[in-house]
């Protein structure tokens, strides 16, 4: 996944707010996924901004560090492979 990508949630996936962020449930394959606070803005972005823009805002707000970014991109890639997210 690249910083220039925009992502949106699959239509069959529902998000429920939780203390640690959110729980995502795919009605398609009946799987649950954990989405932590750092990941949530990307997952909820609905294609409105690129991943890089979202990361920039979060960094500016002190919510994520540059060092944490590769991990977030890996997790987002995992969610894309499982059909939870789509790259626009």
């Amino acid at each position, binding site marked *: 996944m690249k910083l220039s990508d925009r992502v949106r949630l699959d239509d069959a996936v*529902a998000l429920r707010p939780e203390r640690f962020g959110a729980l995502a449930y795919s009605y398609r394959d009946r799987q649950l996924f954990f989405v932590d606070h750092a990941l949530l803005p990307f997952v909820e972005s609905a294609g409105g901004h690129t991943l890089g823009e979202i990361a920039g805002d979060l960094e500016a707000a002190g919510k994520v560090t540059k060092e944490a970014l590769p991990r977030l991109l890996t997790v987002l890639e995992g969610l894309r492979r499982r059909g939870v997210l789509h790259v626009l």
Partner: protein
Amino acid sequence: MYYDALRQGLAAPICLTWELTYACNLLCVHCLSSSGKRAPDELDTTEAKRLLDEWAAMKVFYINVGGGEPMTRPDFFELMEYSIEQGIGVKFSTNGTLLDRRAARWIASTDYLDVQISVDGASPGVNDPIRGEGSFSRARTAMELLAAEGFPFKVNHVVTRRSFQGLDELHAMVTGMGGQLRVTRLRPSGRGKAVWEALKLTQAQNRELYDWLRAHPDVLTGDSFFHLSALGQPLDGLNMCGAGRIVCCVDPRGDVYACPFVLAPEFKAGNVRDSSFGEVWQGSPLFERLRGWEVGGQCRSCGAYDRCHGGCMAVKHFTGVDLDDPDPECVRKPEAGSTATLLPLALKPRAISPRAPAASRTVGSGPQP
């Protein structure tokens, strides 16, 4: 990594069992809810729908429907369809006796609906002494009807000392029909208490089962066997007791319990007629206590604690073991009780009642595709 998040509880349960009725046309010797007769004060259709409305608002994603035999409820189809319309997926457990061709068609053509048929042995000779005469062939017919619709049904098997040898055979039968096997632990809950000592797996069988499950990743286990993960690599699935944290059970009267295997006053958190389900889930002192608790005692110094977390609370409770002690079937301590595989045991399930069961009428009159 999410152990703590789950242990401290979620905004809504992810394993919510709704026992629709205590009525059942069978009388299995190990029934976790001691079902047989309908309770006079079971939730009516309006109350049941109100509950589903609340779950939808809380974003409960899916529910496990059981009983009793849920298909004996005259409003069974109506409630299942209502649930799905509200965005709550359903998996229902049935003994299969009331599942006819029309019901099979309805199941196959309804989205977000799963069915799980209970079978407790690979043959009538093993199954029927536990579930009742004729129950194996009726369950098998239900499977055939679903297979004919191309529906990937599930079979739930409570594995016991007597059925253990037939695991491969049952697995082959179910997968051969396009189904998926789920293996469940026998717990001393409900009527299971009376037969647990004699039917629970021996430690040798538990070890063999662990290897078998590792070799058959297609077999589902839910949270049944995480205590066996203490033997080595963890098994797939939840590795902790989720009672009152992510798991709960609403019984036919609307009583909310920490888990379907602890239908006992000590584990009752409230009733949906007295307060909303959300209030019970979020605020009951019992659930708060469970969310703040971790098994202590000897388990804390056990090398397998991360994989087993002290085992199943229900099994401890109904065997009189302190909840902070190891699971009675802990694989790291010496075996207790008899290990004979053929105990003389008077099992008295009832044969399928010859009287037309309520739901064979329901299937005809319920909403059909």
